[in-house]
């Protein structure tokens, strides 16, 4: 698959790879059958600001690059800003994805939302946004 320079940059030098041991929110989406699994870890302060963000991804070049880009786009922002992240924004920031790889960017958006939902759950805040159902699940 031929990727943009930006995708190759994020694939070869992924930002924010790793785990956060005491994460405030963790979201895992995708499944191994389809060949993509993304997990995003969030560290969130008392003002709802994402102070740290890490990811781990099993998947193709596009899956790794979109995870990396998504973490960059939400780090330092508030949770409500992170919830506004759409897959189109991720694709644009990566200077485009091949059409068959656009689903990877959808997964990145969903991983962020699931991580935030986990955070809400932990602090006992009711869910005030629509949590995407992972349609990859069998």
């Amino acid at each position, binding site marked *: 698959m031929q990727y943009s320079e930006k995708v190759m940059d994020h694939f070869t030098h992924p930002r924010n790879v790793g785990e956060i041991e005491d994460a405030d929110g963790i979201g895992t989406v995708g499944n191994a*059958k*389809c*060949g*993509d*699994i993304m*997990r995003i870890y969030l560290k969130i302060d008392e003002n709802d600001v994402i102070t740290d963000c890490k990811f*781990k*991804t099993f998947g193709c*070049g596009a899956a*790794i690059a979109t995870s990396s880009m998504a973490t960059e786009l939400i780090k330092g922002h508030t949770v409500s800003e992170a919830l506004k992240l759409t897959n189109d924004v991720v694709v644009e920031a990566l200077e485009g994805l091949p059409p068959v790889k656009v689903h990877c960017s959808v997964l990145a958006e969903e991983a962020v939302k699931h991580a935030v939902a986990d955070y809400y759950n932990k602090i006992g805040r009711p869910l005030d946004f629509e949590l995407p159902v992972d349609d990859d699940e069998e």
Partner: protein
Amino acid sequence: MSRFVYADNAATTPVSREVIEAMNEAFVTAWGNPSSQHAKGYEAKELVDSARESIARTLGCLPAEIYFTSCGTESDNWAIKGAAMRMREKRGRTHIVTTKIEHHAVLHTCEALEREGFSVTYVNVDSDGLVKMDELEAAITEKTALVAVMFANNEIGTVEPIAKICELAHAKGALMFTDAVQAVGNVDINLRELPVDMLALSGHKIHAPKGIGLLFIRKGVVINNLIDGGGQEKRKRGGTENVPYIVGLAKALEIAKERLPELDAVRRRRDRLIDELTGIPYSKLNGSRTERLPGNVNIGFEYIEGESILMWLDMAGICASTGSACSSASLDASHVLLAIGVPHEKAHGSIRLSISHDTTDEDIDYIIETMPPIIERLREMSPLWEDMKRALAVK
């Protein structure tokens, strides 16, 4: 990075210098139409005739049993559709037997015939990729027009027992076709001894150009045409002969045959690659250890995905291929790996390296030293790897 290692010879091969030189004459001087009734035409016809004779000698058949086509896929389509239609018309046979690991050129052709009213049995293979012979035998009936089984698999390199399969097909009066695109040049094929009715091969897997193939049709076997036209190839396949490429194919086959004894060296390099790469934890060879093409290595690396491995290999100058869904437009995991029982998640992490006579010991060393850090790097960022290690720690 300065090294370049081409380990994707099952996809295609570079055209060899000898083949280019052989084709040159046909391009530069013998450019006539072989059907023309004049000196320029005779000159071209002579080249086609001598190429056909040379190929017949190489394969152990008659020149009249060789039909040139545009590629392996055309040969597959022609053999299967032509035989199926003929057998239905003449003998009322409407059933085809094939396997689950055929190339898409065969599988999709069989599916097309299902839409034309034929029934098709897709026989299972075992975990090595070898056709289940009892299942195959049971599938062939008096209604079977054709048995189509590949000589060797393109992904995992398993070499099928074609002679035995011929016996089973012929015992029920069915025709036997084999797609030998991957086998030719890697297995000694002698059509005097191997009783297949039809065999397909392609030029670009053996250092001839893309765009040339052939179908062997044994004398006495009649199949319907796929491409009607101006009476070329004894009225069986229309279209002006691709003279330079036909000459190139003959040359490439001749060289491939000459080099068969050198395959032991290729096999040794393949085995070293298999031994070293399966030494990486949580990796496994896909396919048979023994019934395997001399240049094929296919290894599954758990907890990571193949396209990512491929991208890092490519950046290191190594060309390989993967059975992962993510590398294909269809986003389906390899049907071959699934058929040998590899689960989806492991099929995604498979890499095929297909080496050739041109692959050196230094190339093998380079692959062996390049692979482990790539696998490690990708596992370090895989949530599946993390989960596995966590589960191990709990134990």
